[in-house]
C-alpha cells in the first residue's frame, strides 16, 4: 500500500496490459505478437493544480508520489475541497473476464484461425487487388488506489478483427472493410456469410456507383452512420470539460432545453457490452446510464469529478484515459440513439428523393459535423436506387438534431475494431456507438 502524503488528494492507477496483434496482407503474415506490460499513472491534487506522473516502473510509484508532492503546495483543508469530497470511494474486485473468456488464456494460433477463415473469400475475388486482415485484442487489469480509501480492481476487454480490401476494375477504385468487435472471443467467430455479403455489396458499388449530384437531401443513416453522427454531432458537446467556467455554455446548454426533435433520445452507458464497456472509470467512479437527450430535450451530460463539481451535477463515470501515459478526461463510453417505431421499409418508402448512407470511412463534429460515406445509395420514389459516390455529408449540429423525423425500430451497438475516438492528444480511445436507421432532412451532400 502506498504512503499518501498529507495535505493532498492522491490516486494511483496501475494497468496490467495484455494485447494481441495479428496482421496479414495479401496472404503474407506481417505481424503476430502478444505484448504484456505493467505501468502506472499517478495524480496528486493540492486544491489548486493537478500534478501527474506516468511511469513504466511500478516499483517507483511511491517515489513518484513523493516527487509530485514536492511540486505542489500543502493544503491542510484538502479534505474539505469540493472536488475531493465528490470522489467516490469504491472497494473490491470486479473482474469480469475470467478463465476461457479472458483473451490472455486463448492460444495465439486460435486467434489466427479466426481471421484465416476469410482468406479464401478475398483471394478468390477477381476485383480484390489488395486485402488485409487484422486481429486485435486487449485485456487490461486495472488497480486503483486513492488517498480517500478507494481500493478497486477491475478489468476491461475488447476483441475483434477487420478484413479490408481494395477493389479495382478498369479506372474504378473502391476500398471497403468488414469489422467485427465484441468483448468475448467466442462471439466473434464464424461470420463468413456476412463478410461475403459485404464484399459483394462493395463490388456492386465499384461497378455501378455514379457521382452524386451535390445538394440538400433527406438522408437515412445506417446504425453505423447514426452512431457516428450521435457521437460526433452531440456526444462531444455533452463532455462537460468544454463547459468549465463557461457562462455562455451553461446558459445555452441548460438541462431541459429543447435541442432536437421529439422522437430523439441519445444515451451514453458504460454498463453496456461493447468497446465502451467501462464498469468503473479511471477516477474509480461507477458507470452510469446517462440520457444526454430525452424526447428532444437536453437531459444530462458527461462528467469527471471536477466537471460534476463545477456544474453542481452528479457523477456519470466518464473520466477515461487512453492508457497509462495520460490523465483521465471526460470521454464517451457507449453512445447511441434510441430506437423508434418505424420499420426500415417505412422509413425509406416515405422519401421521394434522398440518400441512404450504409457504411462510412470517418466522421467529425464541431458546429458543423461531417460524415464521409463509403457505400451509399440514392433513394427514389420510396425505393433504394443506384449506388452513389459522395465525398462528404455535412450539417449544422444545432439545426440537424431538429431535422430528425424518423427512426427505425431496431437498435445496433457497434464499434470500430481498429482506431477509436480522438480528443486533443488522446487517440484512440475504444468507444461503442450505434442507433437504429435514422432519417434526417436537409443534409448537405457533396
Amino acid at each position, binding site marked *: 500500500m502506498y504512503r499518501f502524503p498529507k495535505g493532498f488528494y492522491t490516486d494511483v492507477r496501475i494497468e496490467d496490459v495484455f494485447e494481441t*496483434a495479428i*496482421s496479414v*496482407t*495479401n496472404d*503474407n*503474415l*506481417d*505481424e*503476430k*505478437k502478444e*505484448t504484456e*506490460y505493467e*505501468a502506472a499513472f499517478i495524480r496528486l491534487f493540492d486544491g489548486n*493544480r*493537478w*500534478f*501527474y*506522473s*506516468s*511511469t*513504466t*516502473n511500478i516499483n517507483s510509484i511511491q517515489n513518484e508520489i513523493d516527487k509530485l508532492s514536492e511540486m505542489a503546495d500543502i493544503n491542510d483543508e484538502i479534505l474539505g475541497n469540493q472536488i475531493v469530497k465528490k470522489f467516490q470511494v469504491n472497494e473490491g474486485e470486479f473482474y469480469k473476464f475470467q478463465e476461457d473468456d479472458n483473451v490472455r488464456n486463448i492460444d*495465439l494460433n486460435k486467434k489466427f484461425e479466426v481471421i484465416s477463415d476469410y482468406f479464401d473469400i478475398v483471394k478468390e475475388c477477381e476485383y480484390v*487487388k*489488395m486485402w488485409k486482415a487484422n486481429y486485435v485484442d486487449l485485456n487490461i487489469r486495472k488497480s486503483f488506489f486513492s488517498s480517500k480509501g478507494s481500493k478497486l480492481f477491475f478489468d476491461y476487454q475488447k476483441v475483434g478483427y477487420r478484413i479490408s480490401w*481494395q*477493389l*479495382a476494375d478498369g479506372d*474504378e*477504385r473502391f*476500398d471497403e472493410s468488414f469489422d467485427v468487435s465484441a468483448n468475448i472471443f467466442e462471439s466473434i467467430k464464424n461470420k463468413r456469410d456476412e463478410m461475403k455479403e459485404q464484399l459483394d455489396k462493395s463490388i456492386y458499388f465499384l461497378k455501378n456507383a455514379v*457521382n452524386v449530384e451535390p445538394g440538400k437531401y433527406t438522408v437515412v443513416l445506417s446504425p453505423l452512420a447514426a452512431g457516428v453522427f450521435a457521437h460526433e454531432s452531440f456526444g*462531444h458537446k455533452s*463532455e462537460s*470539460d*468544454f463547459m*468549465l467556467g*463557461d457562462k*455562455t455554455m451553461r446558459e*445555452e446548454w441548460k438541462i431541459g432545453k429543447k435541442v432536437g426533435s421529439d422522437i430523439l433520445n441519445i444515451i451514453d452507458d458504460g454498463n453496456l457490452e461493447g468497446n465502451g464497456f467501462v464498469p468503473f472509470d479511471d477516477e474509480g467512479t461507477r458507470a452510469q446510464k446517462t440520457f444526454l437527450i430525452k424526447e428532444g430535450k437536453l437531459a444530462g451530460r458527461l462528467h469527471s469529478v471536477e466537471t460534476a463539481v463545477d456544474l453542481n451535477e452528479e457523477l456519470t463515470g466518464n473520466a477515461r484515459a487512453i492508457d497509462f*501515459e495520460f*490523465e483521465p478526461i471526460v470521454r464517451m463510453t457507449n453512445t447511441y440513439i434510441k430506437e423508434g417505431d418505424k420499420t426500415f421499409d417505412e422509413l425509406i418508402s416515405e422519401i421521394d428523393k434522398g440518400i441512404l448512407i450504409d457504411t462510412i*470511412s*470517418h466522421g*467529425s*463534429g*464541431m*458546429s*458543423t*459535423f*461531417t460524415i*464521409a460515406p463509403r457505400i451509399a445509395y440514392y433513394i427514389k420514389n420510396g425505393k433504394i436506387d443506384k449506388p452513389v*459516390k459522395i*465525398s*462528404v455529408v*455535412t450539417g*449544422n449540429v444545432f439545426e440537424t438534431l431538429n431535422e430528425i423525423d424518423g427512426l427505425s425500430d431496431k437498435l445496433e451497438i457497434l464499434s470500430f475494431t481498429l482506431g477509436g475516438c480522438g480528443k*486533443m492528444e488522446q487517440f484512440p480511445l475504444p468507444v461503442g456507438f450505434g442507433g437504429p436507421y435514422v432519417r434526417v432532412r436537409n443534409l*448537405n451532400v*457533396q
Partner: protein
Amino acid sequence: MNKEIFQIINEEFSIKLANSKISSLRKKDIQKNAFRIYKDGFIGIAGSLGEIDEEFLEKKAVKALDNKIPYPYEITKNQCKTSSIGQDLISDEEFLKKTEELLDRLNKKHTDFTFSNSISKTRSVKFLRNDENTELVSELNYYETGIVFKHKNSKNIIDGFFGDEDIVYDTSRIEKMADMMLDNYNNELDFEDGEYPVVFLTMDTTGPLMKFIRDLHGMIFGTGSSLFSGRIGEKLFSENFTLLQSASYQDYEVIKHFFDNEGTFQENFTIPLIENGVLKRPYTDKKTSEMFDFELTGSADGDFDSVPNLNYETFVVKSSEKTVEEILGNRKAVIIFEASGGDFTPDGKYASPVQLSYLYEGGELIGRLPQLNINSHVYDIYGKDFLGVPKDSILGLRDKDGMVVNMEVSKI
C-alpha cells in the same frame, strides 16, 4: 542470425490549460525497448517498457521466431550516424514561468476569449543498433504548443486553434499568431461564392494532401489499387508541384527522427515522391520496395515492438521561386485554419467543409469568413489550379507556411 536493438525514449513535461488557467502539470519518462532476431528469413521481436534487460528480451525474441513471420530482407548494414535537432531544453521552472507569462498576456489582450489545451516540451531519442555494424541515434528536443480558443459568447465547444512546433520556445511568435487570429475574429465578413486562391497552411495531411497518403502507399500502389498505379514517370500534375517526403529540419523545419523503424534514411533526409509534376515513386518500406521493385524511401513505421510496417512520413510541398505577392497579385485569398472531415471519392473528387477561415488581402488578414465548402479534384488541385508554395511567408511567422490552390468556394 542477426540481432538488433530498437529503442524509443520520451521525456516530456506538459502544461495543461483549462478555462484560461494552468490546471495541471504532467511529467513522463518512458522508455520502450525491442529486441529483434533475424534468422532464416524470419523475424522474432520481444518488447518491454522501462530499463532494458537484453538477455531476457533476446530469449523472448528467439521464442517469437516460432511465429514464422517472414522477413527475408537485408537489415541495415554499416551505418553509424548520430543526429540531433534542437539544443538542451529549458528547465521545467523556466518553461512554466514563460507559459504563465504568455497566458497572462493572452488573457489581458484577448478578453473576449478563453484558452485551453496544452503546451509541452519533449526530448525524444530513437536508437537502433545491430550486429551488422549499424548504430543510429536520433535526438529531438522541441516544444509543442496547441492552444484551443473559444469566444466567450460562442455556443460552440471550441472556435479555433493556434499552435507551433519548434526547437525554441518562441512565445512571441505564438502571441503574434494569436493576435492575428483573434484581433480579426470579431470582424465577421460576408462571402460571395466563387473561385478563390485558397491557402492551406503547413504540412497538414488532413486536407487535400490526404489523397497521397492512400494512393502513394507502396502496397496499394504496387497491387494496382491506387489511382496512380502504373504511372511512374508520367507527368500527372503541374510543373510547379513537387511533393517531398522529408525529415529535414534544416531545409523544411520538419521535426522528425531521421531514420525509419528499419534504419533506412535518405541523404539530406529528403526524397521526392512527385517532382515537377512527374510521379517519381510511391513511399515504401523494405517489403514493398523489394516486392514491387520500387525505390526504398524509408517509410517503415509501427509500434516499438512491431514488425516494421509501411506508413507515410512527413509530406512537404516544395516552395516555388515566386513570392506571395507574385502568386496572389491583388486577388483576395481564403486562408484555411480549420477544414476537417472532408475527403476524396475513390476517383479523386474532393470536398470539405471549412470550419474556420479568414480573408487575406494586401498582405494581411482582413476578417473572419463564414463556414464554407471547398470543392475540387485531385488532378485540378495539383494540376491546373495549383498556384504553388510562395518562397516567402504568407502570415509572416515562419519562413514558408502555405500552399495556394484555386478552388470553388461557397458558403455552407
